[in-house]
């Protein structure tokens, strides 16, 4: 896919024919220097923005053909998001934040039970009814992980999920994501500028000058274009 911002002389090519594929259950890092286009790439995969050219297939569906409403439903059902600042809704409790994707999707069947189980698995069973702004940054990020997983999405996308945390908490969050990925056979795509903290992963996609280099280590090995 290609993404161009601006028009005329002010055009900036954020992504330049970046092409790659990710399989079910893979734990993938997107790395690159600042301004290389990794967050832009994540926005395209997360359907938060549309590519200028090219296509994004998720579960075999060409998402570029979906209209705004269908994209919203698709994001709700197929994608989970973890943001750098956790971005919990401070008006809601921890439990309500985890339940939010279910409420938005209108699927409430066993939601509360699932949310409680997820919160238990991220070690927050005692914080369920606390307001989201009353918990620590590390706890908030764990809530965000639970929220990202509640709808059993095809892909969980994380943008610098440890960027705002100290090294100890970062380590806990990384381990949590890896264990959840393994336990649930869940695909994770993580944008990070600290890949070394993640240890062994299934794949690393390096973005350089808007192009994607795919590999399973930190060296730029192969350009897929």
């Amino acid at each position, binding site marked *: 896919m290609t993404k161009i911002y601006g028009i005329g002389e002010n055009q900036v090519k954020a992504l330049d024919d970046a092409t790659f594929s990710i399989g079910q259950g893979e734990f993938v890092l997107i790395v690159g220097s600042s301004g290389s286009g990794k967050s832009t790439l994540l*926005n395209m995969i997360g359907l938060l923005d549309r590519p200028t050219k090219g296509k994004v297939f998720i579960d075999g569906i060409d998402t570029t053909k979906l209209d705004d409403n269908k994209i919203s*439903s698709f994001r709700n059902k197929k994608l989970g998001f973890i*943001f750098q600042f956790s971005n919990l*809704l401070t008006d809601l409790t921890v439990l309500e934040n985890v339940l*939010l994707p279910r*409420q938005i999707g*209108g699927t409430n069947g066993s939601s509360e039970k699932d949310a409680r189980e997820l919160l238990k698995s991220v070690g927050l069973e005692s914080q369920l009814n606390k307001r989201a702004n009353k918990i620590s940054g590390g706890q908030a990020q764990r809530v965000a992980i639970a929220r990202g997983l509640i709808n059993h999405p095809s892909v969980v996308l994380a943008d610098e999920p440890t960027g705002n945390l100290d090294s100890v908490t970062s380590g806990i969050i990384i381990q949590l994501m890896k264990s959840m990925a393994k336990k649930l056979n869940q695909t994770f795509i993580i944008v990070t500028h600290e890949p070394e903290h993640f240890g062994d992963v299934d794949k690393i996609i390096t973005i350089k000058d808007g192009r994607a280099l795919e590999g399973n280590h930190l060296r730029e090995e192969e350009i897929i274009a």
Partner: protein
Amino acid sequence: MSMEYRLRLAKRMLFNKKGSLIGAVLAVTIGILVIHVNFVIFQGLFDAIVRDISNYRNGDILVTDEADYIDKSDLALANWFERIPFVQGATPRLSSSAEINMTKNGKLIEETRVPVVGVDPYRDVKASTAHETVAEGTYILNRNSVVLGNNVASDLGNAQVGESLKMLIVDRYGEDQVRRFTVAGIVKSPGGQGLDYSVVMHIDTLRDMMAREGESGSFMVKLNDPTKAFEVKEFFLAAYPNDDFIAETIEESAEEQLAGFRSGIAMINLIGYFGMMSSAFAIVTIQMMLVNGKTREIGVMRSIGAKRKDILIIFIFQGMIIGAIGAGVGTAAGLGYTIYAKETKMSFMNSIPLEVNYNWEKIIQTALLSFTLAIIASLYPSYRATKLLPVEAMRTV
């Protein structure tokens, strides 16, 4: 997203921004309060003037004759009216003007062109409350006494009860008729709306002086139920098809005095509604602030699947909540003020006491209007909220 959940989110987001909520509710409340205060004061003043004109001068129905004077007997007309159950009383009135001389402390005081009202003391108390305005002495006692309006007494060098005065009236033939009277009482009404500028005397005495034996200038009819005025008037006119009677309800007979006031009230109401519009603009501003303060949350909700419609409805719900609370608080505050004005018989600087009524139709209409305006005011901020891109949530803050 279910409606119930949208409402829950709207409430939660709004109630956690107490400052904005209070500001927006206050804007609606003040808008409603302005309308209520305007209504209590200006409509109250208007109704008070109508009340006083009705009580002191015109009754609920005023009967006159095209030929200036009614020549039918008092008894015949009063009996005709008083057999109708809605009628409280009917009384004849006769008007003229006089020149009055009075000697006070050896000094002659002369007043000209003083209005004189002739009343039937027996019937008048049933149809008018003029007798209730007696501040000193009594109402008309006999044919040789008069009651002075407070202003007339003042102009006559503070005339007192028991003093005598000389009155000159020109009769129908142009002859001067002079008589001496004793002051039986002095009337004073709130705001001077009663007979404060007149001299009141027995109608038969005035008839004598004017050489209008058995004639009346008007017939004042007071009803138990003023809403039946039109019905009674029509009934009366139908009963006397061959006479030249003119019968008018209070609205018709006082129209000249009230017309200017009526347009003034319309203007004041308009200003009130402009005030309400200002409240709507305040709501737009406050809600825009709310939307701007929730950019990140809106982005997050959009990124995890909330549709534009969901965001739109959440913020419209906020407008509805603001409108509902504001309308409730504003109406309660307005009603509180209305009750206070009614119970205390509010007046300004001892002037005419306001005639305060609970106009439920207007109260409900005002509340609904402000509620609707709050919703309309929330449309633009809600629309703006839907325009926020989910990618906002991914940006660092």
